[in-house]
């Protein structure tokens, strides 16, 4: 029964199905898995599971708890890379269904870990099982959206990936509210919160799996005609998922994403401390937390804005804007600190974070332009290893440079200046990588016979 519900043939859209139902289906998944950005709200309560009001000697340390998030991001990248082809060939419903089971299951297993006070169970639950759900869920709607919106692929994938950025806005206040409801003088309430959130996310993601559809073969949007002359840097051919790895374009885009994310993620985690140290006496700890929320909002809006803009100005030009404007803005931040202009600092960071999010959201359409529609989801999965890499290097780079400066007598207010210039340098390298992106050589294109064999082995619906 469940098998037939998940079967790809059951997901072909019936006559009259509106393609505008696909973005909410994708958002059902991405708004849930975006919770990962808000996982830190559990960290402090989980250091007081035994002591309740303050940490007891047997309570977990923050450093130990930090690994939960890192593991989840690591498994996000790993599962997206390894399971990308499985996701692509099985269709979006099976992938969303599996992602829902893994992500919600991660919460249930973690609740058991909290109940038994066994940290390894939480590593396994949220980190490994939940992280696998994150990876499958992240790439599950990408190729489906691109097939439904051949006229606006950037906007379509941007909407879904905007949801990933927005998930934390829902998860953070919801988690805090649930913990306040379940806590008592003898109990922190984390385990119950995990169970309730797992149930909510399971239902929410299942709704997405239920309403998602792939377009029938030969479908095209009303009033849409494919361009007679292919646009520059937009292929009409397809590249097989593992052949993409042999192209310089894949690795150039890998570095483009990695460098853009490294620069952004490095300062994202330090935005609160950085703003307080650069503007001592002007920005308090409370105001800094408000600023971080504001920056996260720009991160989310940028995902939709920049990916939609890329439909008009092209992906390559969009990344040129990210790298050129980003370099200027990073170089401007120390000046904002020197003249003590909070307004200029906030403006710079708001734009930087909008382009950080925009980098994530525009890359699926960039891959589609280079490698075609058929395996774009799987290729996107392989590319997400760049994110995992950046997630490790970005924060380490920022922390190391700051620590080095402070131990060498640089005042905390100026300790981030070198960091900003290093980040600007990374973006210059990204700019150069983008310069070298050309069309994929035709020897990598799937031949008609290959394409037919692939379709017979594992049909992918909705290919235009």
């Amino acid at each position, binding site marked *: 029964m469940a098998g037939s519900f998940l079967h790809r043939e059951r997901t072909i859209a019936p*006559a*009259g*199905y*509106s393609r*505008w*139902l696909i973005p*909410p*289906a994708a*958002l*059902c998944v991405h*708004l849930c898995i975006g919770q990962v950005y808000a996982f830190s709200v559990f960290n402090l309560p989980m250091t007081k599971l035994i002591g309740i009001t303050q940490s007891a000697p047997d309570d977990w340390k923050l450093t130990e708890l930090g690994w939960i998030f890192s593991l989840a991001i690591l498994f996000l990248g790993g599962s997206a890379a390894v399971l990308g082809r499985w996701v692509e060939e099985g269709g979006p419903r099976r992938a969303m269904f599996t992602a829902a089971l893994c992500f919600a299951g991660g919460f249930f297993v973690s609740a058991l870990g909290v109940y038994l006070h066994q940290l390894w169970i939480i590593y396994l639950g949220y980190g490994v099982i939940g992280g696998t759900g994150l990876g499958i869920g992240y790439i599950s709607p990408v190729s489906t959206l691109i097939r439904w919106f051949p006229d606006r692929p950037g906007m379509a994938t941007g909407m879904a990936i905007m*949801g990933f950025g*927005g998930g*934390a*806005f*829902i*998860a*953070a*206040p*919801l988690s805090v509210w649930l913990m306040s409801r379940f806590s008592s003088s003898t109990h922190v309430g984390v385990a119950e919160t995990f169970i309730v959130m797992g149930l909510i996310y399971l239902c929410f993601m299942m*709704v997405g799996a239920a*309403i998602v559809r792939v377009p*029938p073969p*030969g*479908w*095209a*949007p*009303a009033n849409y005609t494919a361009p007679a002359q292919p646009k520059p840097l937009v292929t009409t051919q397809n590249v097989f998922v593992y052949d993409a790895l042999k192209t310089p374009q894949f690795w150039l885009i890998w570095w483009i994403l990695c460098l853009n994310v490294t620069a952004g993620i490095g300062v994202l985690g330090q935005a609160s401390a950085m703003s307080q140290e650069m503007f001592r006496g002007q920005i308090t700890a*409370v*105001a*800094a*937390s*408000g*600023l971080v*929320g*504001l920056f*996260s*909002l720009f991160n989310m809006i940028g995902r939709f804005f920049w990916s939609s803009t890329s439909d008009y100005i092209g992906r390559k030009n969009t990344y040129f804007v990210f790298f050129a404007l980003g370099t200027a803005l990073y170089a401007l931040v120390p000046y904002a600190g020197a003249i003590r202009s909070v307004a200029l600092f906030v403006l710079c960071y708001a734009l930087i974070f909008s382009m950080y999010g925009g980098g994530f959201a525009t890359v699926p359409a960039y891959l589609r332009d280079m490698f075609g529609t058929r395996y774009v989801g799987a290729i996107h999965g392989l590319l997400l290893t760049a994110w995992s890499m950046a997630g490790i290097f970005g924060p380490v780079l920022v922390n190391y440079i700051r620590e080095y400066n402070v131990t060498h007598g640089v005042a905390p207010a100026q300790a981030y200046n070198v960091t900003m210039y290093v980040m600007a340098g990374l973006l210059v390298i990204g700019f150069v990588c983008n310069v070298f992106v050309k069309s994929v050589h035709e020897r990598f294109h799937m031949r008609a016979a290959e394409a037919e064999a692939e379709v017979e082995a594992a049909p992918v619906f909705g290919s*235009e």
Partner: protein
Amino acid sequence: MKSTRQPPGSNNAVKLALAWGFVGIPLVWGIVQTLVNAITAFR
């Protein structure tokens, strides 16, 4: 390429409103919460 363009179904508007409301309402709630916290922080 054969095109199978279809006119939108009559109940599509209801489905669209429900689907977008299902994801839009929680998202707007979360954004409002964030903005309220941000404004409070600056006071």
